[in-house]
């Protein structure tokens, strides 16, 4: 099982404070990060994913009771976020194959097909991502986040552009992923936040 430890975390962009003094020790299966626009939900997820260094403080993951070293996080984390996009020139399947190969995974074709099937993108998996609608692109991004079976799944506004069947797929995916690891969702959607066992409200951390 996985947990997250955040201590005295603060971040600034060009001297403008995004959030400060966030402390959290969470060992459950699904955490919702909520707060108004600009409160730093996406920034926090980028810090947790290792894509951004915080101005001060520390954020780390604990997997099976041990600190997860940063170099091992690459294979442990899956992230779907609006500012992390797939290659528009490649098909969804080619994107997944590239990511799986780069991560050193085996059974690349099987994993890619399985991930596309889980997000309901089997029929359009060979179309170029640039030619997909925004909803199908979001499904492809979710497939890329789960294709390598990460222990930690970070989802930033995951329901953006999804239709009703997409929402059902997303909720099913979150339920199945939380059974085997940790899911952290940054959201303003009350239905998504309700899936979590605990909520971190960044509106109160400013």
């Amino acid at each position, binding site marked *: 099982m996985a947990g997250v430890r955040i201590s005295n975390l603060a971040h600034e962009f060009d001297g403008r404070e995004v959030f400060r003094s966030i402390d959290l020790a969470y060992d459950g299966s699904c955490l919702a990060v909520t707060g108004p626009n600009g409160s730093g939900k996406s920034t926090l997820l*980028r810090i947790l*994913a*290792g*894509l951004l*260094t915080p101005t001060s403080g520390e954020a780390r993951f604990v997997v099976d009771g041990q600190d997860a070293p940063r*170099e091992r996080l*690459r294979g442990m*984390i899956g*992230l779907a*976020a609006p*500012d*992390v*996009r*797939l*290659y*528009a*020139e*490649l098909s969804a399947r*080619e994107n997944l194959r*590239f*990511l799986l*190969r*780069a*991560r*050193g995974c085996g059974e690349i074709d099987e994993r890619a097909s399985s991930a596309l099937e889980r997000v309901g993108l089997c029929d359009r998996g060979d179309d*170029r991502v640039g030619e997909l609608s925004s909803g199908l692109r979001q499904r492809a991004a979710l497939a*890329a986040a789960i294709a390598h079976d990460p222990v930690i799944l970070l989802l930033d506004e995951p329901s953006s552009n999804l239709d009703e069947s997409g929402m059902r797929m997303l909720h099913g995916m979150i339920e199945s992923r939380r059974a085997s690891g940790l899911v952290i969702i940054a959201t303003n959607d009350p239905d998504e936040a309700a899936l979590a066992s605990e909520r971190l409200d960044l509106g109160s951390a400013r």
Partner: protein
Amino acid sequence: MSLRGAVAVLVKDARCELRSKQAISAVLLFAVTSTIAVSFTLGMIGSDAAVASTLLWVVIYFSAMAGLGRSFAHEEETYTAGLLRLAVPAESVYVGKLAFNFLTLAAVEVVTVPLFVLLTDCRVARVGAFIGMLLLGSAALSAGATAAAAMVSRAASKGALFAGVSFPLLAPALGIAIAGTNAALASSPAGCAADMRLLVYYCGVVITASLMLFRCIWEE
């Protein structure tokens, strides 16, 4: 570093490039037009080996500037850099991008160098050494340009900054490549071998330093 990750980046970049043709068309167009322009000048002043080798490398250098700087900037502009950082170790990204840039430059040279030789009526005394200098010089330009492209990829005015950052890094390689190509054109085996050795050392130093520093450039 994961070699598998580097190969994955190279294959991905090649596949994206074959479909979008962004870098290759920019570099090729520049290289062909400047080769034709240079051939008019050489036609007037005569094809002296020193002048021909200098002009050939000026064409290759500016072609590299026109296309290789895009390798990381494009990832940032299309919001795919985060995906790359999440999935591939930094050193593998550098090696994959370096290999892709080298192949791009080599592909451009396959078209422009014969065109240059043909249009300028330039005599190549030692063909093997000439091709060796082109390959080593291109590897050296690619090594330096790849590191410089990563450094400037998140800056606001990438184009100007890329030229400014890369020139001091690439100037020694450019000087050696010109001298070595001059030796190959004028049939001076000793000078050519010495310049080839220097380019191998240059590549070794730049690639080693880039591998050591690239994580700081790419991830921070």
